[in-house]
């Protein structure tokens, strides 16, 4: 009953798929986080009214299902003759999707820093940028980290949807094997285990950082 036709080469094939998942996730989370920090600072700095256009734009990315975004954006870039490959297109869409969520995480983090603490910093002569860098950023990061880890893990799993643009990431790689070997349950178990192996260190890293930063709480 434990016999399987899955060979070592098939596992390598899955590993390559996992590599693609990691690449798409890595690029998207990195770019999305940078954008999210930028947008989050803009959101807090300009207030809800002035940042309304930005909020509206980000709300679209938060509320339209990712699959629809991917397909529509891919068609759009084809019509507009951007000439982007599926990897670039996937990363752009996923980055904006990540940025939309990250913006709210960053905003929540910044707003968790008491106004008085920030004023205490400014009253010592720190400039706005120094206050952001030395006081707000470390404190907001602590508050935002658990949500950000959750977002990263979420994006990693959601990145499976890029298979619709023709990228062979982990899930697509498993589907190909399922079709060929006709062992869906076993292969999906292996696929799930690989997802877990990738996620676990990220989750643990989050736990470790939280612990390291908390002796002062």
């Amino acid at each position, binding site marked *: 009953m434990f016999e399987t036709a899955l060979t070592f080469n098939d596992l390598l094939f899955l590993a390559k798929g996992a590599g693609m998942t990691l690449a798409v996730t890595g690029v998207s989370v990195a770019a999305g986080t940078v954008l999210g920090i930028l947008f989050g600072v803009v959101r807090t700095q300009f207030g809800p009214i002035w940042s309304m256009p930005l909020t509206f734009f980000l709300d679209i990315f938060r509320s339209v299902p990712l699959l629809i975004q991917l397909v529509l954006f891919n068609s759009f870039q084809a019509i507009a003759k951007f000439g982007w490959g599926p990897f670039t297109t996937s990363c752009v869409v996923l980055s904006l999707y990540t940025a939309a969520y990250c913006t709210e995480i960053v905003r929540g983090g910044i707003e968790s820093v*008491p106004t*008085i*603490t920030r*004023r*205490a*910093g*400014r*009253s*010592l*002569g*720190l*400039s706005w940028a*120094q206050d952001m860098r*030395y*006081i707000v950023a*470390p*404190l907001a990061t*602590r508050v935002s980290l658990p949500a950000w880890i959750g977002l990263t893990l979420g994006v990693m799993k959601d990145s499976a949807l890029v298979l619709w643009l023709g990228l062979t990431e982990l899930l697509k790689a498993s589907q190909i094997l399922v079709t060929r070997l006709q062992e869906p349950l076993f292969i999906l178990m292996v696929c799930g285990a690989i997802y877990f192996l990738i996620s676990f260190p990220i989750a643990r890293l989050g736990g470790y950082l939280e612990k390291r*930063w908390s*002796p*002062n*709480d």
Partner: protein
Amino acid sequence: MIEIENVRKSFGALEVLKGINLTVAKGEVLTVIGGSGSGKSTLLTCINGLEPIDAGRITVDGTEVHAKTTDLNTLRCKLGIVFQQWNAFPHLTVLENVMLAPRKVLRQSRAEAEAMAVKQLTHVGLGDKLKVYPSRLSGGQQQRMAIARALAMSPDYMLFDEVTSALDPQLVGEVLDTLRLLASEGMTMICVTHEMKFAREVSDRVAFFHKGVMAEIASPEDLFEAPKDPELQKFLSATH
């Protein structure tokens, strides 16, 4: 010298400062008393430019605080302020809290900033808490740390915004002792406070604020013994 001329300030429809005129000379200790909502705390945040003003003028040693050309970050180096609570930077140790601004704003070397920080922390009685995070300090110790942090910038003026109001009663004394120490050393201070006994002891002058107006200003003897303003009389009989 801090000169406050006809300063007006509103939050929305609520006018919290209705034309304040006040001069604080170098070396003077001025305490400001009054009920909550009287505008006394707002005045302090206006003096170091944390809040804009709607009309009037505040000058510190001849520099107009709210002029567009004024570099507030430079000006604030000589105006220390300590708030009621949330002063501490919780992610930094006590020593790092005090060293941050001298390092980043005054561009002091690490050794220089550390020497100054240790000196000021020892001065307020926290010489044994250098490596501790603020959350391990009592409220009174946190306030003293905030005072040391402001002093490390070598300010010419210190503003205290109800620094004992959020403290447990048994911790008030140690913070007031620190303020008394500063006053005895000749620091120019404006203290917004509810501690009448303290105000009476350390002040050169006491100002009473009521509903955005400075209703009376006088020496502590005159103000506490012979209050003229009817609101002040009411206020004093309620607090004594």
